[in-house]
């Protein structure tokens, strides 16, 4: 009977990530090397921004939408601006 070796925390996390990988192939950022799409990130461009919200109105996390950190930040900033101007909802819970 081999003793179960307790791995260090970092190694445990790595294993966890490896386990997650098979769910979806490595997602690529759609904004990288695509200047046309980058100009579409604008708080007035409501139809485009809606793609990055859940049905409840929450902003999708980068690990689901596949955005790189820089564009995720830009996107989130514009979504929050649109929310203050009532172009996008804060939440769409009913009742």
């Amino acid at each position: 009977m081999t003793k179960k070796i307790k791995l260090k925390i970092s190694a445990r996390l790595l294993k966890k990530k490896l386990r997650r990988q098979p769910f979806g192939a490595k997602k690529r950022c759609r904004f990288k090397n695509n200047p046309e799409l980058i100009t579409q990130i604008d708080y007035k461009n409501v139809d485009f921004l809606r793609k990055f919200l859940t049905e409840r109105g929450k902003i999708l996390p980068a690990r689901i939408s596949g955005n790189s950190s820089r564009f995720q930040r830009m996107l989130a900033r514009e979504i929050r601006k649109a929310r203050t101007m009532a172009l996008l909802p804060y939440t769409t819970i009913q009742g």
Partner: protein
Amino acid sequence: MRRYEILILAVPTITQDEIKKIESDVDSTIKKGGNIISFEKWGKYRLAYPVKKNSYGVYALVRFTLDAEHDAAILKDLDSLLAVKFEAIVMRHILSVLDPNGSLVYVRPQSLEEEPERKSDDELSKGKIEKILSKTDFKKNTPKRDTTREFAEGRQMQNEESEVVEKGK
């Protein structure tokens, strides 16, 4: 020369005159140290959530450039204009800086109505309406109704009718 834009959210019951007033005031404050590129009225929209108990709102987008010298003072003036002077009309506004070399093309959401249709309230017509309303002061002029008597009369009528029906049989 920096490029800015302000998106203004106004009350849905705004009139053409009020919009023109906002436009002219904004114009005059910006002209002190810059130029207006465009003043676009988007029209009436359904809001994502009620703002000051209004489900609809009228948007307007102002784009302008300002010189580097006086821009802070002018922006402050604009802010106080929209927040204080037009407090009853303008619900929200947001200022953002634009890329000085970027294109001015943008996509805007689908509107319900284009231009706000309400015409300005005439001072004369306002006075007229008040006069009419004061004449027909409903509480004073209607005679007091004797409700008990009416009820009794109504009952009598009913009885008479039933008698008639019986007789008819």
